[in-house]
């Protein structure tokens, strides 16, 4: 049973601009359950990095604790990884980001990791506009501890053992928009065509980019009464439209009907082009976007796609007015004021 769609006929050993094949972006063999949504997301991350000609060693992979948080071991072998403690990846990512502004920070977390123990750090990483891609592999359950409800699980949805979930879900994408995240998308691990451009867009975005990806847990939350099962999502998924990633320099090929198409500029000059399915939706207007999400939620739909983007915001590094050189590369003579100045300070203190 596999949910990974075959990639659009790419021959396995195709090379990208760096001369690398997809294999070069792989990681260790996954120890997740066969069919776990998280593995599909890993595959999409690999594909995105391949497409974007990313140098793995300039990526830092960070995570908390959980099945989802194990995932970074299963892609980008040449990247440093940091599997930190439960729910605290955002702070580690923030510090790492400040220490070296030149890497691409890829955070991977679970719904337990981010919506419960880690929600404070999640919120404050957004508030600070840490320049990172933050992926939530959202399965509505605590996979690694065997199937307890997570805080993103829907009210009255049931667990594997038939118990009702008694509490309303926290919608992390809504929360992120509300808090000023500058790139927010929701997607589904099983829909790689939608997911890959969204990941690519997030990687090229400057600032905090959230991807809330429904990622079914085949072992604990894929039954009939679950609202995070493959079947449920396939049925209730409603995309805001079709998203394409348009690399720097390339032109948008398809011309959409007037009013239905939006372009989102990304930091490096590349673009996301979105063919909207609904005129009322506008991913550049947070208020409208939130309303649209609320509406769709009422209709019982899971709205996916690029929900909000703002490519003009400052990231933390800018806000803190940091030097261009990564802090971890500053020479001693730049950062140690030396004895002469110490003499002056001594004088002031006497």
């Amino acid at each position, binding site marked *: 049973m596999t949910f990974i769609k075959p990639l659009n006929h790419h021959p396995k050993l195709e090379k990208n601009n760096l001369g690398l094949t997809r294999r070069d972006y792989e990681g260790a063999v996954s120890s997740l359950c066969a069919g776990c949504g998280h593995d599909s997301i890993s595959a999409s991350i690999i594909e995105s990095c391949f497409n974007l000609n990313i*140098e*793995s*060693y*300039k990526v*830092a992979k*960070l995570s908390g604790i959980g099945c989802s948080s194990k995932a*970074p*071991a299963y892609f980008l*072998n*040449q*990247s*440093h*990884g*940091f*599997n*930190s*403690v439960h729910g*605290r990846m*955002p*702070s*580690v*990512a*923030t*510090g*790492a*980001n*400040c*220490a*070296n502004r*030149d*890497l691409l920070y890829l955070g991977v977390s679970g719904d337990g990791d981010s919506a419960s123990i880690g929600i*404070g*750090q999640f*919120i*404050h990483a957004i508030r*600070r506009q840490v320049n990172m891609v933050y992926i939530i592999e959202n399965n509505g359950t605590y996979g690694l501890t065997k199937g307890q409800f997570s805080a993103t699980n829907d009210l009255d949805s049931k667990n594997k053992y038939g118990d009702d979930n008694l509490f309303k879900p926290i919608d992390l994408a809504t929360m992120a928009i509300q808090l000023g995240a500058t790139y927010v998308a929701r997607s589904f691990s099983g829909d790689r065509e939608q997911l890959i451009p969204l990941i690519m867009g997030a990687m090229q975005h400057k600032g905090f980019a959230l991807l809330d990806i429904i990622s079914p847990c085949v072992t604990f939350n894929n039954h009939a009464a679950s609202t995070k099962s493959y079947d449920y999502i396939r049925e209730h998924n409603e995309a805001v439209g079709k998203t394409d990633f348009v690399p720097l320099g390339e032109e948008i090929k398809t011309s959409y009907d007037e009013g239905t198409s939006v372009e989102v500029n990304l930091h490096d000059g590349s673009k996301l082009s979105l063919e909207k399915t609904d005129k009322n939706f506008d991913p550049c207007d947070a208020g409208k976007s939130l309303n649209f999400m609320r509406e769709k939620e009422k209709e019982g739909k899971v709205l996916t796609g690029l929900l909000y983007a703002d490519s003009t915001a400052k990231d933390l590094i800018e806000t*803190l*007015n*940091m*030097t*261009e050189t*990564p*802090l*971890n*590369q*500053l020479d*001693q003579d*730049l*950062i*140690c*004021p*030396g*004895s002469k*100045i*110490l003499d002056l*300070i*001594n004088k002031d*203190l*006497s």
Partner: protein
Amino acid sequence: MHNLKKVESISAVNNFVIKFANVNGSGSASANQMFAKAMFRMGIPVSPKNIFPSNIQGLPTWFEVRVNEDGYLGSRGGVDIAVAMNPQSYSKDVEEISPGGFLLYDSTWKRNFNRDDITIIEIPFTQLCVESFKNPKQRALFKNIAYVGALSALLEIEYKVLETLISEQFEKKPSLIEPNLKALNLGRDYVLENLSFPIGITVSRSDKLENKILISGNEAAGLGAVYGGATFCSWYPITPSTSLAEGFEKYAKKYRVEKETGKNLFASVQAEDELAAIGMAIGANWNGARAFTATSGPGISLMSEFLGLAYFAEIPLVLFNVQRGGPSTGMPTRTQQSDVLACAYASHGDTKHVLIFPSDPKECFDFAAKAFDLADQLQTPVFVVSDLDMGMNDWVCDKFEWDDKYLFNKGKVLSKDDLDEMENYGRYLDVDNDGICYRTYPGTHPEKGAFFTRGTSHDEFANYTENGDINAATLTRLMKKFRTASELVPEPIIEINGKDSCGVIFYGSTSPAIHEAKDLLKEKEINVDLMQIRSFPFNLDVWEFIANHDRIYVVEQNRDSQMRTLIMAEGGISPEILRPLVHFTGDPIQASFIVSKISEREVNYKSHINAKKR
């Protein structure tokens, strides 16, 4: 000065305790500090201590200044002069004054204090200020400067010194110089014109402070972090550590900004809590920047989980713990040394951490800088453990020094070239057999040296493993690293004062009280050998000192004799040898307390020995 005295007035030069009793938030701090600084400028050893409530405005607050020509600068106890500006606390303040002492109060509202054994000096400060200043804020504020002026006449403080201090303080707001001087003279002139002066207690220029400075431990540590090359600070406000992070920021803003661009060569982030603060510092250190956090008791508890991660994943980290009164929220504005065990064994599982204990602001500066080297060398958290007394009060200490030839020791970090030459890199391979392995920073090499950092059990190549023997080997190597650490951390300072002396072990801010106690004990013909512990793990000198003594008093400012526990647990030292001597009220320990405890026990000991001999 119109009381009949039954007791003779205290008479002293450069040797007294003066206590200012104020209302919190009434602007007395800078006047009080000016007084202390004036002593310093006159070359007289001085130790001001702020005794403040955990409150912002309206409650009693005190500023106690000990002036001591001999350089004994621990808390002394007793008050020779009280400057009582807060009617709320009059009764306590007046009661505290030693017989023969002096009380100076705002006699705008006259009082009868029912003490005929002290000299009561009445000056109508409020009235004077109301008459001289229009602005109501200034009227209130300048009372404080006015009493400094009065003291300058009463104690013979050099006027010039005060004048200079005022002009320095308001260098950037020169319009304030004149009114401040006016206030100063208001008090001074009142004394000169209406009272007899000087009183029995006076000050006189001295030369005891050559090469000394006056600074708080927190500011010193913040500056030390700048010198030690810290580029990232993440912290969460908590008394008494806040001023350390602020100190770092202050100096970094001054000396760490790129001239051409105005951009910062550092970053400081006020985190959302202590868990985030330490997480950020760990992330930055992992990524090769020198990063630290500063906190106090409750923060240590909250950081415990992350500390275990840094220990086990071997990530450098510098953590300043400025201790306050515990447990729980405890006494946030009082001092203790009660986090020693919490730091040494922080986190669940088998963990041990490196601690260094400065004993004055000079060591705060030195150890702050050194901590970054140690953390990088040892790839583990290094705690700089100070306390509120030394952290927030200005202490006299030696001038700071810096050797420009000194190079940061970034520890075992592989460069791209190093990696190119290597066959088989393993993050946790103990290549040098010292328990310390080789790191790589993210982004170093396109193909080599990447690894996966984790808090789960791992093998020498940083791969996850559930093999118990491999994990036990890792834990055993970490013990080896801890032994290596004992050779790198600051050694104790030992002072041997005679044969058959008893030993005294102490650390941190207990230092001034101990040195005074030692001299006082000598007067009683009790010789003590001193060992100032400056680090955990303990190095050989520590064990040697202990081995050479049959009885040692371990002097600590906590209830549970925490350092003694550490020594016993780590060294297998017989408990009878190590005798707890603890003080844990939250007020700084005093020499007199130490003297009474040691002399009592030493007398017992000697009579016991003599009885045996007989």
